[in-house]
């Protein structure tokens, strides 16, 4: 069995708050998590959940109150480990007096690449993030989306095994989001491990092998998006068109919502056939019948609500250590 790409054990972070800094506020509470090699792992949570704190702890930008973590089997305190990882901070901001090319050159020098290697890599990654045309423009003139792309380029410039992206989609237009999604998929296809935090659940659903939900500094659950969204069918959705001149059965006319001639109604799975019979008898045209499953967003909202109400019951999917 190969070493997990990321192993987090009981990682906790307290911050001193208040004027005398005697009170402690817990930002991350005993986070235990494993991410496998080659996985795309989504780290979900509302604002202030502890996502950025976790990423900063893993990057060595802040220090844990307790607990430990390893990346590629090496402690996060090991500076050599940083050769194998790439990191894009949330809302990245870089030296605005540098051009994109100069910034990447600066970071490439840190990794000890010679001039020829640097030139090749810089060209390749500027092309990859769609910034070739702006490579010699100072970063102060870059839009938020362009800075985000530079952030991704500098994170993968040295071909790291594990890539950490903090909210990589934020601030991007739909085209930018699509491009970032493509980059993440490409990295995944190359066998890289991708660990990214996001608010955009559809992206996580589309990209991730597994996701975790963090609320209030506590891990609420970990699992594959398909496991989360296909736990059970919550009901059936019927779309139909009413026949002009034939009235709908009373329960349909009160429960269904409609736009023009088109109606939508949700019925329990057990009542599906009787509902279809009634619609048939009123000469309605059935457009579609689809099962209603909880989305990742439903799951996410449920976790947030549960944490807010402090209900301790665990979610039926794997919680805590997951591999």
């Amino acid at each position, binding site marked *: 069995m190969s070493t997990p790409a990321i192993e987090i054990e009981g990682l906790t972070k307290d911050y001193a708050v208040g004027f005398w800094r005697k009170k402690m506020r817990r930002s991350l509470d005993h986070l235990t998590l494993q991410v496998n090699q080659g996985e795309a792992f989504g780290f979900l949570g509302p604002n202030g959940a502890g996502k950025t704190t976790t990423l900063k702890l893993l*990057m060595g930008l*802040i*220090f844990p109150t307790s607990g430990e973590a390893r990346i590629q089997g090496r402690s996060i305190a090991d500076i050599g480990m*940083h050769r194998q990882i790439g990191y894009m901070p949330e809302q*990245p901001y870089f030296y605005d*007096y540098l051009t994109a090319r100069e910034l990447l050159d600066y970071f490439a020098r*840190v*990794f000890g690449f010679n001039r020829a290697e640097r030139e090749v890599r810089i060209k390749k990654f500027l092309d990859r993030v769609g910034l070739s045309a702006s490579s010699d423009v100072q970063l102060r003139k870059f839009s938020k989306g362009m800075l985000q792309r530079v952030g991704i380029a500098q994170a993968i410039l040295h071909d790291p095994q594990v890539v950490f992206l903090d909210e990589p989609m934020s601030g991007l237009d739909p085209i930018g989001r699509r491009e970032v999604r493509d980059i993440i998929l490409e990295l995944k296809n190359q066998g890289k491990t991708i660990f990214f935090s996001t608010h955009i659940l559809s992206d996580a659903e589309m990209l991730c092998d597994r996701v975790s939900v963090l609320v209030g500094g506590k891990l609420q659950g970990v699992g594959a998006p398909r496991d989360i969204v296909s736990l059970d069918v919550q009901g059936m959705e019927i779309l139909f068109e009413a026949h002009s001149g034939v009235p709908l059965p009373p329960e349909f006319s009160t429960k269904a919502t409609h736009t023009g001639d088109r109606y939508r109604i949700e019925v329990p799975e057990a009542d599906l056939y009787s509902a279809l019979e009634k619609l048939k008898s009123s000469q309605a045209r059935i457009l579609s019948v689809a099962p209603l499953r909880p989305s990742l967003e439903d799951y996410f909202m449920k976790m947030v609500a549960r944490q807010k109400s402090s209900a301790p019951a665990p979610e039926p999917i794997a919680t805590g250590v997951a591999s």
Partner: protein
Amino acid sequence: MSSIPGIVAINTFREAVRDRVLYNLIFFALLMIAAAVLVGGISIGIERDVIVNLGLTAISLFGIIMAIFIGVGLVYKEIEKRTLYSLLAKPVRRWQFLVGKFGGLLLTLMVNTALMTLGVAAALLYVAHKFESSDLTILIAIYFVLLELALITALALFFSCFTSPMLATLYTLGIYVAGVFAPDIRDIGLITTNPAIKTVAQCIYYVLPNFHNFNIIAAAAHKVVVPHALIWQNTLYAVLYSALLLLAASTVFSGRDLK
């Protein structure tokens, strides 16, 4: 300069140049031109003294202002703008970053001082029409200014590691002014009969960086020979004190959470 501190230093220098820090040279050049023209007309026999005094004082003052005001923001700005996050996620140790920032600002100050030295030399040539061997003292005085600037930069960088630029400016400026008057603080201890004041004065004298010994502007203006021992002493003092400050800065910064 392929080491990490070297890479950071070059980038810091580039930042200073692109932030138009060297524009201060325009003011310095104007000052030197005005001094050379005016001194020639109003000072008979002491033109050289006035130019050397004015030139060295201006070099020192411009350098101190730059060292403090850029130095206090060296680390703070990188944390506030989060430019440091991407760098420290790479195989870069925090002390390497600090040494690089220190080196970069020092390089900026050296280039700035070198260009101002050319300005003083030109003004001197204009009023005295020739250089003398005793003018070498001027170069020693400028070397001492650079040592002083290295020490101030290290101080500013140290404070920059844990406090805001405004407070760091106050602390650095306060210590600099106290350090200029270090002999007076020592004298207070010598003349007082109160043992407590004597002890405090002595402690302050030994702990504070002594900036007084770096100022030989008057000696340079009056062609007084500078003893070799002073050159070695000042060099060693500045190097050791700066190294200690950088070590302290690294210790503080290495344990600091970057929020």
